[in-house]
């Protein structure tokens, strides 16, 4: 019998450490695994049991709190228990069935701190196969697979490898970009935490193809667990002879070191990442020269994202053709890219977490069939794809196929795979403002259009959501957005206006509502709403009055309360505290 506890960051945050302690205190040995992707069900505990014939059966318990842990222990001890209450619901089990897990193939299954669990599932077989091939053949296989950069830009991986390979120079660098900065994207973290060897193996194969002997993983310092597990994995890989001199007797030398980044979003841009690696301020520079020609320390360098590298071993343990045919074999037609993509589902979605699906699936299928649809039965309004660099895809375009080109047509991007789902209660102007606030703060400050342009756009958006918008603001905003795209040096600035441009494209009426009608349709923007108490529903319990930070609520106990709008700061605490749903959100009356 084995007990495995999900100890990715999501599990740890949900209390996995405490649960682990309970099992240990009761004398049980426990193992760990990474994130299976169902973050909303963490902590997850799995119990593997072998029957007489040696077949392993697995029982999965979810949302395991202290009480649940006791019940599970009771069941393990054969005592009367209610552990069944915490079993994985069928509906959620189906989520896994709908996926095609390649980059995430081992996440939530193996113990990331044990190389033997990785190799037991076919790990390092791809490396061995590729070492038997000529570097050109390795690149050819990647080309056949159609693998494209999963970090956002979707640039063909073989092309970059080939460019680095053909660059003259003895010293070349294979760099892994694990500076995952998009708010709402966490697949790279999950992969490193859950299956670090897949990244190491992918880098090894790439390095072999390019003739590189130095590897660097640039991880943001905010991922401490990932750094720990990566270092453990590197140590184990070295011990196993997968890193170091003459790897697997092939004569190929390669080793990897880890560099913790200080957490600037822009350092995900490859030239900024290189500057940061060199100890300089993380600022992008103009390309060309491309890193494949002049990269880290002016040497030819290749930079791929975590998910890209993690997909590579599968291509070699299976085949490039099989990777390219994933969509076809999943019954999907018309996809203009190959393989799978990991998406981080967040926002108003019922089953938030990480999912990996064949490229070519529609947005609707991912959100409804896999993500379980919208929380609380609300209506689906839009989904932000690609984080702050991406755009929103409105509900009416939900049948858009997820591939690089189809998404680009909507104004969104695949990006790193963040999917922030929004429902009817989301104010789209505020969404644009939120993302722009992020890019404005994360701009490196180098080029004019991005540094000042995003600031000015943010000021306009703040005006609009604050109730001070002017009709001409929409035009200025749109014009400025296009100039920021046009004039910025790197991807950050070139894509920063996307949330604004797409919300302007699909939800211009919401901008107009704010400016002309002084109304936030979604009833989110504080300056446009007021809270009122429904006298019929109010029981006079006084909870809201107690919670109100500005003493705007008055009323006798057991009598309906009232809110004085003038004193109300629209903090929503009354609405959240009311047990009788008596607090309503109305439109604020404006003095004309």
């Amino acid at each position: 019998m084995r007990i495995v506890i999900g100890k990715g960051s999501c599990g740890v945050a949900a209390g996995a450490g405490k649960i682990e302690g309970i099992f240990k205190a009761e004398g049980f040995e426990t193992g760990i695994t990474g994130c299976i992707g169902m973050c909303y069900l963490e902590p997850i505990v799995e119990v593997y049991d072998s029957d007489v014939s040696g077949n392993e059966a697995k029982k999965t318990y979810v949302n395991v709190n202290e009480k649940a842990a006791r019940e599970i222990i009771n069941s393990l001890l054969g005592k009367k228990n209610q552990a069944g209450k915490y079993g994985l619901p069928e509906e959620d089990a189906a989520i896994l069935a709908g996926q095609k897990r390649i980059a995430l193939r081992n996440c939530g299954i193996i113990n990331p701190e044990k190389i033997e669990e990785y190799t037991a599932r076919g790990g390092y077989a791809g490396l061995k196969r590729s070492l038997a091939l000529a570097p050109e053949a390795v690149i050819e296989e990647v080309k056949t697979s159609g693998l494209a950069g999963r970090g956002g830009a979707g640039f063909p991986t073989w092309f970059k490898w080939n460019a680095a390979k053909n660059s003259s120079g003895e010293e070349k660098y294979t760099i892994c970009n694990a500076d995952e900065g998009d708010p709402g994207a966490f697949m790279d973290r999950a992969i490193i935490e859950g299956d670090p060897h897949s990244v190491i193996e992918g880098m090894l194969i790439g390095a072999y193809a390019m003739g590189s002997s130095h590897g660097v993983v640039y991880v943001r310092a905010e991922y401490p667990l990932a750094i720990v597990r990566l270092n453990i994995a590197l140590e184990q890989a070295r011990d196993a002879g997968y890193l170091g001199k003459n790897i697997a007797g092939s004569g190929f030398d390669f080793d990897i070191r880890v560099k913790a980044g200080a957490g600037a979003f822009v350092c995900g841009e490859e030239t900024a990442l290189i500057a940061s690696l060199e100890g300089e301020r993380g600022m992008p520079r103009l390309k060309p020269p491309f890193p494949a020609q002049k990269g880290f320390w002016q040497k030819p360098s290749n930079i791929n994202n975590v998910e890209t590298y993690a997909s590579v071993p599968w291509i070699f343990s299976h085949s490039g053709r099989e990777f390219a045919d994933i969509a076809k074999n999943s019954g999907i037609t018309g996809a203009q890219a190959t393989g799978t993509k990991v998406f981080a589902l967040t926002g108003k979605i019922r089953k938030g977490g990480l999912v990996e699906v064949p490229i070519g699936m529609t947005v609707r299928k991912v959100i409804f069939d896999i993500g379980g649809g919208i929380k609380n039965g609300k209506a689906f309004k839009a989904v932000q794809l690609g984080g702050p660099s991406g755009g929103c895809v409105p509900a009416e375009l939900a049948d858009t196929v997820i591939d690089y080109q189809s998404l680009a047509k909507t104004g969104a991007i695949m990006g790193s795979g963040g999917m922030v789902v929004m429902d009817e209660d989301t104010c789209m102007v505020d969404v644009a403002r939120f993302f722009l606030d992020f890019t404005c703060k994360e701009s490196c400050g180098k080029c004019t259009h991005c540094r000042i342009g995003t600031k000015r756009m943010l000021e306009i958006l703040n005006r609009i959501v604050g109730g001070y918008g002017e009709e001409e603001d929409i035009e200025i905003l749109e014009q400025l957005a296009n100039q920021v795209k046009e004039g910025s040096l790197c991807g950050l600035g070139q894509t920063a206006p996307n949330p604004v441009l797409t919300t302007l494209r699909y939800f211009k009426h919401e901008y107009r509502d704010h400016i002309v009608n002084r109304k936030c349709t979604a009833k989110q923007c504080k300056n446009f709403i007021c809270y009122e108490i429904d006298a019929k529903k109010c029981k006079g319990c006084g909870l809201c009055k107690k919670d109100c930070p500005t003493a705007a609520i008055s009323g006798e106990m057991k009598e309906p309360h009232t809110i004085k709008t003038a004193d109300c700061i629209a903090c929503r605490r009354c609405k959240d505290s009311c047990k009788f749903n008596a607090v309503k959100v109305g439109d604020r009356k404006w003095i004309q």
Partner: protein
Amino acid sequence: MDTITVNGKQIDFLSGETVLAAVQRAGVFIPTLCHDERVTPYASCGVCVVELEGSPRLVRACSTMVAAGQSILTDSPRALATRKAALALLLSDHRGDCRPPCVEACPGKTDCQGYVGLLANGEYMEALTLIKERLPLPASIGRVCPRPCETACRRKLVEEPISIAQLKYHIADHDLRSGAYLPEVATDSGKKVAIIGGGPGGLTAAFFLRKQGHQVDVLDMMPEMGGMLRYGIPEYRLPKKVLAEEIALIAKMGVHMRNNVRLGTDMTLDGLAQTYDAVVIAIGAWKSIGMRIPGENLQGVDGGIDFLRRVHFEKVDLTGKRVAIVGGGNTAMDACRTAVRLNAAHVYTVYRRTKAEMPADAIEIEEAEEEGVIFKYLANPLEILGENGIVKRISLQKMRLGEPDASGRRSPVPIEGDIEIMDVDLVIMAIGQQNDNTGLDGLSLTKRGTIAADETSFRTSIEKIFAIGDATNRGADIAITAIGEARMAAGVIGSFLEGEMLPYRAPVLVKREDLTESDFADREKAARVKMRHRSAKERRSGFSEVNLGYSAEEAKREASRCLECGCLDYFECKLLDYVNRYGVKPVYPGEARKYAVSDEHPYITRNMEKCVLCGLCVRICEEVVGVAALGLVNRGFSTVVAPEMRRPLKETSCISCGMCVSLCPTGALLEKTAQKPVPVREELTKTACNLCEARCGIIMATRGDLHLRNLPVEGGLLCEKGRFAFLNGETSDKQEAPPEWIVRASSGKGSSRT
């Protein structure tokens, strides 16, 4: 040889150079703020964007390598839009005053800060030539101008404004006494311009058109030139000798002046238009406005300017007379103070509001009071009463102040039934002037009856005919307004005579409007140096000039009070140049970064509110000097250049070479000067530094006798000694070895870090 195409023209290029270098070498202009050949391309400002055929994106010329067959459009609509957006964004985050408030307030845009600063440094001649770039009559205007410059002067936030106008005529008087400057006149253009009216506007137009080399004839109806300056301003404010001297200088430039010729009788517009290549109407407003009250036509009722003109021609004696002047402007003050000097028994000034609302200069009111004028505020004439057609009494409706009107002044409201009747012998109505339209047939007029002239080109409805000053558009204004229009019109007419008329465009400037007393709380108070003047008693008895002038020492002391509001980099600022070159408007208003000025360094002043974050200072210091005393800190909009470890610059590894200042495209980094700092156009002289063996090239920037700066030659380097040693008077010919970094950088090796 391989070529590239730039704006449709083939040009050669050198392999390995950038698009910017190749295009600039071919003489085609591409602006850039962040590029300098001494450092590696950085591509931050976004101003050098051009369209490259086949490229989906605009490219940055500064960091795009040239390649055979490229086709480049430097000013395509797309490139221009992005370039202008960059400039407008930079402008929105640039705090300061390109020009000082005094200059901005002056309708003639005289460079007050410039000449006051030059005077403070003892540079009389330079100050005078600077004044004459805008104003040919400084001795006269300095005496009569109501001084909007001083109203705007920020020194008032410390204690009192600078006496700008008095300093101006101090400089001009000095010039008249010591040789009288004459500007250079361009060679004869063969074009002829007629100017109708020899007042301040007409004479100024004549001055500037003559400077351009045109034949200029000034035609005036009066016996002598000067217009209102001569016939409307009393002698005690402007001695006619001073005016005559200044007019004589204009005549000396070759301007023909004809008097006693009147439009409509002695000449016609049509006739002039046929004889001349251009005609400028500068006839002023010479008709007093009446009050439309009963009794206006009685004998003993006069208009303000009519009275002043009469005094000019006739011997008027008011002994024993009671005189009432109606009005609150400077003409009213001129009239009442003239009446005092003509020995009137009682002189009243009747004004319908209070002293606080009076448009006349405070000093005029004060001096009139001293001279015994009785001010009757809150009174408005109802009727002038006479006997046998001669004025005897005036009845005044007493007023009170009501609500503020559109102009913000509280408007007077009659107090029902409160009427005062005063015995008077003479009523002078000084409430305004209008123009006499005789001879203007065929010209379009405004609703007010003034000549309709385009406000940017000064064109009238008739080809070749231009009009300026009191006779146009909004009507009578102060002299310097007419002078300003005359100068602008001279520029427009110059372009018209050359074949393509270019209208005047006011430059886009950054201004600060948020300063208050507290911003100057640390300034040491220094009261205005008052000009000596005659006592009231002495003044009453004659028309001698009231003011007695400054001594050189007083003038210097007064001029030294200037706060130097206008940016010292005005004449070199690339941002300002580009903004105006491309007609960029401040279309993206928003928050601008705020920083305190750091001037702790012995040679360098840093003002990050003017920084465009081009990074040139950071890069030259690191890449070429090899020091890295400056770096970028913070991110996004808050990014700022700061000395290492955020310490004061002088406490860093800075070696005071000043290369950062040399490369700064704006006024963010400035050299300290040995003199009172003043923004002026510098004279640049190329020479060599003799403080060590390197003998680096130097550009000496001077103005007059002022040695302002030493700069490296274009693309060159200079160390602390070459740059700043002259400030301490170090000039000796030493045979020392040059600093290590100069040797290294000049050998092309760059710094160890690159």
